[in-house]
C-alpha cells in the first residue's frame, strides 16, 4: 500500500512544476489582464517601478472603436481570413493525401516522408524560403514559363489589393446576422432530432437576432465615420507557405484515423455492395469526423497565434499581412505601449481559449470514460 509519507514525497516532486506553472501561466495572465486595464506606456514605459493607473476597459474600447486603432481592426480581419483559408487548405490537402496513401500504394513511406518533412522546419526557415519563392518577378511566378506558358502576374506578399470590402460600422448588424444563422442552424438540427420545443425556442431566438440586426444594431455607433476593411490578397502567399508546412500534419492525423478503422467495418460495407465512393463517404468520413474536428481546433489555434511565419515572410511592418499577434509585439515591444499591447494579447487569449478550453475538457473527459 502507498504510505502517507510516500504520497507526500510524490506531491513534493510535482510541487516545483506546479508552482512554476501557476506563476508563469496563471499569475502572468492575471498580470497581463491587469496591465490591459491600465494606462501603462508612453513616458514611464521602461521604468522598473512605473506609475500606472487603472482605466478599466478603455484600451479595449479604443481597439474596437477608437479611430487611431484602425490597424488592429484590419489585423482582426486578416486573422480571421488567414485562419479560415489556412485551416481549410490543410484539411483539404491533408485529407486528399491521406486518402490516396490509404489505397495501398507502393512507396507509401517515401511519400509520407516528403509530405511531412516541412513539419520539422521552423516557421522562420519556411518563411525565408517562401519569401524567395514568392518574389513578384521570380520564383513561382516564372514557373509556368519553364513549360512555355505565360508567367504569373501577381505581387504576392507585396500586393496591396483588397477584395470584399465592408464597413466596420456594420459590425453590430453583421454580428446579429451571424447570431441569427447560428440559432437557425441549431433550431434546424433540433427539429430534425425531434426536439420540437427546443427547435421552436431556437427559431424564436433566430428571429429575434434577425430583427435586432436590422433595427437596434444599425443605431449603434461604432465609429463616427465609415471605415472599410476587406480581404488582403497578400495573405494568400502566407496561407500557401503555411499549408505547405502544416498539411503533412493533417495528413498524418487522417492517415492514423483511416488506419484505425477496423477491417471488419469495411468488409461489411463491401459485402453490402457499397462502391468505393459510398464506403468512403458514408463509412470512412463519418468515422474520421472526431479527428477532423480536433485538426480544426489545433490548426485554428495555430493560425490565431501565427507570428513567426508572417514576421519573416512579409516583415512585421507590412500592414497588409499583419495580425494581432504581430501588432501586440510592435505595440508593446517597439512602441512601449504596454497597456495596449496587453489588451491585444487579452483579445488573442480570449479567442484561443474559446477554441481550446471546450476541446481540452471534452478530450480529457472522453479519455477518462474509456
Amino acid at each position, binding site marked *: 500500500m502507498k504510505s502517507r509519507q510516500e504520497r507526500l514525497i510524490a506531491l513534493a*516532486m510535482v510541487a516545483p512544476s506546479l508552482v512554476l506553472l501557476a506563476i508563469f501561466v496563471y499569475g502572468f495572465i492575471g498580470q497581463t489582464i491587469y496591465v490591459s486595464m491600465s494606462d501603462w506606456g508612453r513616458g514611464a514605459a521602461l521604468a*522598473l517601478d512605473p506609475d500606472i493607473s487603472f482605466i478599466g476597459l478603455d484600451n479595449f474600447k479604443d481597439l474596437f472603436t477608437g479611430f487611431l486603432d484602425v490597424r488592429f481592426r484590419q489585423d482582426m480581419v486578416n486573422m480571421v481570413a488567414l485562419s479560415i483559408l489556412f485551416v481549410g487548405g490543410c484539411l483539404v490537402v491533408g485529407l486528399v493525401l491521406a486518402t490516396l496513401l490509404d489505397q495501398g500504394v507502393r512507396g507509401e513511406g517515401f511519400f509520407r516522408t516528403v509530405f511531412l518533412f516541412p513539419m520539422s522546419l*521552423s516557421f522562420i526557415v519556411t518563411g*525565408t524560403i517562401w*519569401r524567395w519563392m514568392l518574389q513578384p518577378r521570380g520564383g513561382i511566378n516564372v514557373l509556368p514559363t519553364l513549360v512555355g506558358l505565360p508567367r504569373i502576374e501577381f505581387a504576392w506578399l507585396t500586393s496591396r489589393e483588397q477584395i470584399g470590402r465592408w464597413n466596420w460600422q456594420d459590425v453590430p448588424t453583421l454580428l446579429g446576422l451571424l447570431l441569427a444563422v447560428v440559432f437557425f442552424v441549431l433550431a434546424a438540427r433540433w427539429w430534425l432530432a425531434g426536439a420540437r420545443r427546443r427547435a421552436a425556442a431556437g427559431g424564436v431566438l433566430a428571429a429575434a437576432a434577425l430583427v435586432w440586426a436590422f433595427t437596434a444594431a444599425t443605431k449603434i455607433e461604432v465609429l463616427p465615420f465609415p471605415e472599410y476593411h476587406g480581404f488582403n490578397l497578400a495573405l494568400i502567399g502566407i496561407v500557401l507557405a503555411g499549408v505547405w508546412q502544416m498539411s503533412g500534419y493533417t495528413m498524418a492525423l487522417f492517415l492514423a484515423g483511416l488506419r484505425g478503422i477496423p477491417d471488419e467495418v469495411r468488409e461489411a460495407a463491401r459485402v453490402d455492395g457499397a462502391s468505393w465512393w459510398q464506403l468512403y463517404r458514408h463509412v470512412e468520413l463519418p468515422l474520421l469526423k472526431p479527428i477532423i474536428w*480536433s485538426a480544426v481546433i489545433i490548426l485554428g489555434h495555430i493560425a490565431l497565434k501565427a507570428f513567426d511565419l508572417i514576421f519573416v515572410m512579409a*516583415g512585421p511592418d507590412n500592414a497588409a499581412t499583419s495580425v494581432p499577434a504581430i501588432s501586440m509585439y510592435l505595440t508593446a515591444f517597439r512602441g512601449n505601449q504596454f497597456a495596449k499591447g496587453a489588451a491585444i494579447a487579452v483579445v488573442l487569449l480570449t479567442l484561443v481559449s474559446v477554441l*481550446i478550453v471546450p476541446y481540452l475538457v471534452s478530450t480529457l473527459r472522453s479519455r477518462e470514460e474509456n
Partner: protein
Amino acid sequence: MSARKVRWTRVWIYVVLVLAAVLYLLPLYMTVATSLKAPADIRLDTAWEFPRALHWDSYRTAWQQFSPQLRNSFVLAITATVLSTVMGSMNGYVFSKWRFRGSEIIFPLVLFGMFIPYQSILIPLFQFLRSTGLYGGLPGLILVHVVYGLPITTLIFRNFYAQIPDDLLESATLDGAGFFGIYGRIVLPLSVPGFVVTVIWQFTQIWNEFLWAVTLTRPAAQPITVALANLAGGQAVQWNLPMAGSILAAIPTVLIYIFLGRYFIRGLLAGSLKG
C-alpha cells in the same frame, strides 16, 4: 468495377501523388539551387536553373556568420530539453501513478499552458526577467523554455506511463519499494521510448522557436532563428546567403526527422492530445 478501370484509377493515384511530391519538394530544390549559386548568377528569371558550377562559398560565409547563434541554439535547446524532459517524466509519473486529491482538476490546468498565445504572458515575463537580471541572456531563455515546456512533457509521460499496468507497481510495493524505488526499478527502465519522443519533440520546438528568442534576448545570446530572420528581412537581400543559412538552421531538426521520424510523429500526435 472492371480490372481495366481499376488499373486506370491506380495510375491516377500515382500521378497525383508524384505531382504532389514534386510540388512539396520544389521549395527544397529552389533553396539548394540558390544556395549553390554565386551571388552574381542569382537572377529572378533564371531562378529555377540549377547552377552550372557549384559555388560553396555561401555555406562558408553563412557558417562563419551564424556559428555564434548556432552555438546559442544548441546550448539553449539541449539544456532546456534535458531539464524539461526530466521534470516532465517525474510529473507524468505522479499524475499517472500517484494521483492526489485534485490532480484530475490540476492536470487540464497544466495542459492549458501549452495552448495559450505566449503574447498573453510576454509583458509580465519580460518584466520578471528584467527584475531578476535574467533578461537578455541564455539562462533566462532556458528557464522560459523549461517552464512552458512542462505541459507537453508532462502530458507525453503521463500518457506513456498510463500504459504500465498498476499490478506491476503493486508487486514492487509489496517488495518494499517506495516512490523512488518504483520509479527507478520499474518505471524508468520502461521509459526509453517516452524519453526519445519527448526529447525529440522538445529539441525541435525549442530549436525552432522565435517569439521569445526575438523579444527576450540581446544580440550576444540570439538563437539561429532570430539571426536568420534578420538576414532574410534585411534590405537588398542576396538570396544565396539566406538560403544557405536556412539549410544550416534546418539541418539539426531535419536530421532528427529523417532518422527518428517515427518518434517525431508520436510527439506530433501527443501535442494534439491524440497520442
